[in-house]
C-alpha cells in the first residue's frame, strides 16, 4: 500500500471533476502574502538515511547529566509504565467518538480522574488537557465565565514565564486582562505585602503556583484566603509530584482552591523534545459545568450493570458549536494512560518518597554549590526541588562550560527576568546520585575559579564545529 494515498492520476482526475487546474488554485482566496513560501526543507531521505540521522542526533543527548527542570522534569519511569501503555489496546487512545464502545479507555480515564482528584483534593477532575500551560489558560477562561463580571485575573510573576505567554496568547482575544503580581526579591515568592494594592472586586481570579517557577513555596493559605475575601476564585498551578509532600490545593486556606491545574509530564512522560505532555485540571463541584474537556463517569446501564460513559458533554463544541464552554474537547489519552499506570505503580507512598528524594537532592546540591567561592544562592523562601543561584559569570557562559563537561547545569533566568541576570535555576530530582551532585559542584568550582583567574577560560569558547 502506498504511503501517499493520492497518485498524480488521482489528483488530476479530482481536479478535472471540480474544474480546477492545480491544487494551489484551491487556495487562491488566501492572499499571496500569507503563503509560507519555500520552507527550505532538505531533500527527502530514505528510511535508512533517516534512521542513521536520528541515531546520530540521539547520541548527542546521551552523555549529559541533566540538572535542568524549569517545567519539565527528569524522573525515573518504571519500565512497566510504557510496556503496558504501549499495548495495542491503549496505544491509539485518542478520545473515542463512539465513546461507550471503548469501555476500557473510559475506565482508564475514570481511574485517572479519580487519582488526580485525590492528589489535588478537588471534587472533580477532567480527562486531561493538552499541557500545563494551556490548562492554566483554560482555568483563567473558566474563572472569568464563572465570575460573570470581572475580566481581569492576577497572574504572579512567579508563574512559569512560558505559561504566562501561553495564557496571554489564548485569552487576549477574549478581552481578558492579565495583571502581573510582583515577587518578593529576597524570598522569591509572591509578595503578600503588595497584595493590598489589588484588593477589591475587579478581579475574577488569583493564580497561585506551588511550587513557583523559582522552585519556591508560596504562602498558599494566606493567598487563598485573601483572594476569597475579595470575591476572587483561586486557581492553583501545581507540580503533581510536589503534592506527595505538600498540602493539596483543595485544602489551601479555609475554603481550598477552586480550580487546580498542572503539567502532567512528571507522571510518566519522558523528556522528549518537549512533548507530548499533558495538562490536568480539577475543580470544585460548583464549577463543574464551566469545566472544559472530557469527563468520564461511572454509571449503570439499562440492565443495572456497571459501565463507564462520557458525561457532562452538553456544552462541548460538537453540540454547542460556537457557544461551547471551550474549544478544547480533546485529551491526551496516551500520556494519561501512562500517567495512570505510573501513579498506580508508585502509589501515594511512592509519590511521597519520590518527592522527598527530589527535595533532599536539591537541598544537598544547593548546600554543595553554596560552598563554591563566587556562587551565591538566590532567594530564601523554602523550595521543593528547584532553586536559584547566581555568580558574576554570564549564565550562558557558565552553562556552556558545564555542558562541555557533560553537565546540563540549569535554566538561565535572565531572559525572562532581566533583574536576575547571571542567575541559574537548577533542579536535582530523585534520579541524581551523591556522585552526580559532587560532579556538578566540582566542575562548577573549577570553571568559576579558572574564570576568576583570567583568560584561561577562553579556551572553552565554542568553535564552528563544536558540538556544544
Amino acid at each position, binding site marked *: 500500500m502506498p504511503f501517499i494515498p493520492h497518485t498524480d492520476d488521482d489528483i488530476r482526475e479530482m481536479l478535472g471533476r471540480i474544474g480546477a487546474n492545480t491544487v494551489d488554485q484551491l487556495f487562491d482566496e488566501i492572499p499571496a502574502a500569507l503563503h509560507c513560501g519555500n520552507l527550505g526543507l532538505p531533500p527527502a531521505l530514505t528510511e535508512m538515511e533517516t534512521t542513521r540521522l536520528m541515531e546520530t542526533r540521539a547520541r548527542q543527548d546521551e552523555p549529559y547529566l541533566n540538572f535542568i527542570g524549569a517545567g519539565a522534569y527528569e524522573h525515573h519511569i518504571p519500565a512497566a509504565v510504557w510496556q503496558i501503555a504501549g499495548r495495542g489496546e491503549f496505544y491509539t487512545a485518542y478520545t473515542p467518538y463512539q465513546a461507550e464502545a471503548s469501555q476500557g479507555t473510559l475506565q482508564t480515564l475514570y481511574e485517572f480522574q479519580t487519582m488526580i482528584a485525590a492528589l489535588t483534593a478537588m471534587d472533580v477532575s477532567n480527562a486531561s488537557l493538552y499541557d500545563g500551560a494551556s490548562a492554566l489558560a483554560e482555568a483563567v477562561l473558566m474563572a472569568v465565565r464563572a465570575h*460573570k463580571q470581572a475580566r481581569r485575573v492576577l497572574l504572579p510573576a512567579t508563574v512559569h514565564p512560558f505559561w504566562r505567554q501561553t495564557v496571554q496568547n489564548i485569552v487576549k482575544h477574549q478581552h481578558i486582562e492579565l495583571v502581573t503580581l510582583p515577587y518578593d526579591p529576597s524570598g522569591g515568592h509572591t509578595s503578600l505585602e503588595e497584595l493590598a494594592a489589588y484588593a477589591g472586586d475587579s478581579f475574577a481570579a488569583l493564580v497561585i503556583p506551588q511550587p513557583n517557577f523559582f522552585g519556591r513555596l508560596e504562602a498558599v493559605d494566606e493567598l487563598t484566603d485573601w483572594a476569597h475575601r475579595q470575591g476572587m476564585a483561586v486557581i492553583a498551578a501545581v507540580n503533581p509530584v510536589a503534592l506527595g509532600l505538600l498540602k493539596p490545593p483543595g485544602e489551601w486556606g479555609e475554603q481550598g482552591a477552586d480550580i487546580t491545574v498542572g503539567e502532567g509530564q512528571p507522571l510518566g512522560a519522558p523528556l522528549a523534545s518537549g512533548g507530548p505532555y499533558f495538562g490536568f485540571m480539577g475543580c470544585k463541584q460548583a464549577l463543574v*459545568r464551566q469545566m472544559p474537556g472530557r469527563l468520564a463517569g461511572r454509571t449503570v446501564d439499562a440492565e443495572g450493570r456497571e459501565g463507564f460513559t462520557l458525561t457532562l458533554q*452538553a*456544552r462541548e463544541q460538537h*453540540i*454547542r458549536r460556537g*457557544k461551547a464552554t471551550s474549544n478544547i474537547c480533546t485529551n491526551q489519552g496516551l500520556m494519561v494512560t501512562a500517567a495512570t499506570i505510573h501513579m498506580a505503580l508508585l502509589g501515594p507512598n511512592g509519590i511521597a518518597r519520590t518527592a522527598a528524594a527530589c527535595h533532599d537532592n536539591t537541598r544537598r546540591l544547593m548546600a554543595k554549590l553554596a560552598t563554591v567561592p563566587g556562587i551565591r544562592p538566590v532567594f530564601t523562601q523554602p523550595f521543593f526541588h528547584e532553586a536559584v543561584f547566581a555568580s558574576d559569570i554570564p549564565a550562558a557562559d557558565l552553562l556552556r562550560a558545564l555542558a562541555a563537561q557533560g553537565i546540563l547545569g540549569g535554566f538561565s533566568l535572565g531572559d525572562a527576568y532581566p533583574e536576575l541576570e547571571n542567575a541559574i535555576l537548577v533542579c536535582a530530582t530523585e534520579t541524581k546520585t551523591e556522585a552526580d551532585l559532587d560532579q556538578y559542584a566540582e566542575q562548577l568550582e573549577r570553571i568559576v575559579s579558572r574564570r576568576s583567574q583570567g583568560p584561561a577560560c577562553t579556551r572553552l569558547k565554542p568553535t564552528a564545529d563544536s558540538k556544544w
Partner: protein
Amino acid sequence: MTIPTDRRYSKTHEWAKLEADGNIAVGLTHHAQDMLGDMVFVEPPATGRQLAAGEECGVVESVKSASDLYAPVSGAVVAVNDEVENTPEQINQNPYSAWIFKIKPDNPTEWDNLLDAGAYQTLADSEAH
C-alpha cells in the same frame, strides 16, 4: 398537551405569563422540553440583570443538549426560581408551572409582539416533524 391560553409565547419557545403585579414569569414550553429531553441543569439570569427583548440570558441543559434561554421582553430580572434550579426535572414534569425567572417589563407594547396560544401551536406543529 394543550397550550395554555392565559399567557403568550416567543418564537424561541419561552412562555411569558403576565402576573397580577405586572411582572412577567418566563418558562419553557412543553414543546421545548419535549424536544430537549430530560433536564439536568438550569442557569437562569442573575437577579437585577437588565435584559433586552430577545437577549440570550441563560442556559438550560438536558442529557443530550444545552440550549440558550432568551428574554421574551425587555426589563430587569426581579426573581429567579430556586426550586427549578435545584430540581430541573420540574420543567419536564410541569412545564407551564415551572417558571425560571421573572421580568419587570420596561415596555408594555412588547407584550403584543409575542405569539398567542394559537400562533404558537402553529409554530410548534410546523417544527414537530
